[in-house]
């Protein structure tokens, strides 16, 4: 039976988890077709399959990152990281098989150009969808000034884009104290003015200013009102096209945006 035996490595749903999984898969020294990676619990257990759980390990992750960077280049490495942030269940398997394909020596140039390979295409799709989600968060995130001058934002992204999002805002607002909360993962990014930012995970849902759980400054209310007024007057009545507006700005984002929250 040993020949046909499949091994499934269960890893944590994070970049570190997936990369450690890839390291362990190589360490098994078995044909790659027999090894599978998954981040979530299997609903239907497979026959003739051994399930093993992989604990995230920072040293192994470092090693994998170094290999990916030198062999694939910065651009492809970033694409793999974005794919690892996607919310899809099959991401670990797709990334693992893409890496195997890339390191197999059969592949020249950028791995992500080999679109006829299904795993590569799947990885690219995942990375694109996570990239789009990241861009939408850059667009639609709204900070509100809390009493004390801290800027505070709550987001609910489909994919785990908070770390990359915080990189963007830390570059943009280096001298601000700000916090961004991911409601879906109960994850917080905190940026003290002029210092490095860090991530924290919490137990509770982040408080919302709209529900009166936080107090805003008087100035904040004023600027929110100004922006609402601006959004209203800037639109041209003769060209009204709510469907186009909804295509560009889907409803799921609007709960968190000042110009759409009714006062």
């Amino acid at each position, binding site marked *: 039976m040993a020949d046909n035996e499949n091994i499934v490595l269960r890893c944590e749903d994070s970049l570190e988890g997936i990369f450690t999984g890839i390291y362990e898969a190589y360490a098994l020294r078995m044909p790659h077709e027999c090894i599978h990676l998954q981040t979530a619990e299997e609903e239907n257990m497979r026959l003739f399959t051994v399930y093993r759980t992989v604990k995230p390990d920072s040293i192994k992750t470092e090693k994998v990152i170094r290999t990916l960077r030198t062999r694939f280049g910065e651009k492809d490495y970033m694409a793999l990281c974005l794919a690892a942030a996607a919310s899809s269940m099959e991401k670990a398997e797709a990334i693992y098989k893409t890496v195997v394909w890339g390191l197999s020596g059969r592949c020249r*140039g950028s791995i992500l150009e*080999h679109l006829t390979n299904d795993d590569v295409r799947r990885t690219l799709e995942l990375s694109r969808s996570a990239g789009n989600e990241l861009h939408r968060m850059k*667009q639609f995130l709204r900070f509100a000034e809390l009493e004390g001058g801290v800027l505070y934002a709550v987001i609910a992204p489909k994919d785990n884009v908070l770390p990359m999002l915080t990189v963007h805002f830390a570059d943009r607002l280096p001298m601000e104290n700000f916090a961004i909360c991911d409601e879906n993962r109960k994850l917080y990014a905190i940026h003290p003015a002029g210092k490095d930012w860090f991530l924290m995970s919490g137990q509770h849902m982040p408080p919302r200013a709209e529900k009166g759980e936080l107090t805003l400054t008087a100035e904040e209310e004023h600027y929110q009102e100004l922006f609402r007024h601006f959004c209203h007057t800037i639109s041209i009545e003769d060209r009204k096209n709510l469907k186009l507006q909804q295509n560009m700005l889907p409803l799921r984002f609007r709960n968190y945006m000042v110009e759409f929250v009714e006062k």
Partner: protein
Amino acid sequence: MEYLTTGEMTVMEKLGILSDAAKYDVACTSSGVDRKGNGRDMGNCVAAGICHSFSADGRCISLLKILLTNECIYDCKYCLNRKSNDIPRATFTPEEVCELTMQFYRRNYIEGLFLSSGILHNPNYTMEQMYKTLWILRNRCRFNGYVHVKAIPGADPRLIQLTGYLADRMSVNLELPTAEGLKNLAPNKHRKTILAPMRQIQNGITENKNELALYRSAPHFVGGGQSTQMIIGATPESDYQIMNVAESLYQKFSLKRVFYSAFVRVNEDKALPALPGGPPLLREHRLYQADWLLRFYGFKAEELLSEKRPFFNVMLDPKEDWAVRHLEQFPVEINRAPYEMILRVPGIGVKSAMRIVNARRTASLDFTSLKKIGVVLKRALYFITCNGKMMYRTKLEEDYIVRNLTADAGDRQQFAADGMTYRQLSLFDDTAFGVLPTTADNGKVASGQL
């Protein structure tokens, strides 16, 4: 409508008046500049641009688009802010604009400032005020985000030069496609005074590029390039004329973008056309499609239109239209044709064309992989072969292809003037069919009234 109130206006009132007055300006993009934050000042720029919201007309809100003032000494017939209109007038102080920009930017409402203005007193005074605003914004507020500013035609070249060093993008409005149209509708403006600053900015950008090549820390002059806009449908120009104007602007003035703005009738004036069907949005849409063909697909204006066919097809987009009239160049073999030819196939965009060229180096492509790559086969299948085979048995005939391309007119319907759609007649077409009879109806049936 409100009338001028005595005393100082609040910022809210001013913002209302001056954003309302600025809304017919179309260029609200924040693209073209990639600038990292400097670790101290607020702001950075992303090359792709970021839209922060979308207004009810579906247009993006990327920049704080406002006029410095809507007072104007000119009397352009198409403009809401013309001298002879009796509307509330307001003027921002430079400090108010800076404060609004900084506070909005901090909250991630906007990507930067778009500053335009009516002409207050004279062009020089107006340009001075705009320069002052930008100077305060850059030097006192230390704003490092995106700034788009209008150059006022007729202002001192020195002022335009100085402003250019503070802005990421500058634009001069061409207003109308031809000099004749401009003479009829904007008696105070002249083609020459519009083109002069445009040329000046173009030369400034070229010189600055040479400077930057030599001295890395030289100040940037209009790093995001120059754009312009023209109003479509206020004057009787044909699409062919407009495309030619746009093409020469791209070639001779090296503009980054030309924007087209469907004419909205805001003033009652006998010189302006009546628009019973609303603004010419479909025409604007076709012009933008053709504009993309010029900039990214290697088309030329005279390939798309000619003296004899001066307007775009309403049913087909410009690329489909070109393809069905040049069937001798099709079908294109996906696995062998050059990139330039693949780019000309309807249903294949710049991205999918790049992916095809990259992917076919390692494997032969078939229709399944094309679909996965992102090609719109619904449109492309009439024009391509994979390894010598077409997807289905199709005829390479103009009539046949046009019929099939227009059969599914889903995306074309949104522009239909009356919103009417067609469907097959059915026996159960009575719309009241699903309504259940009420108790009163039952009574009527029982008593034989119905």
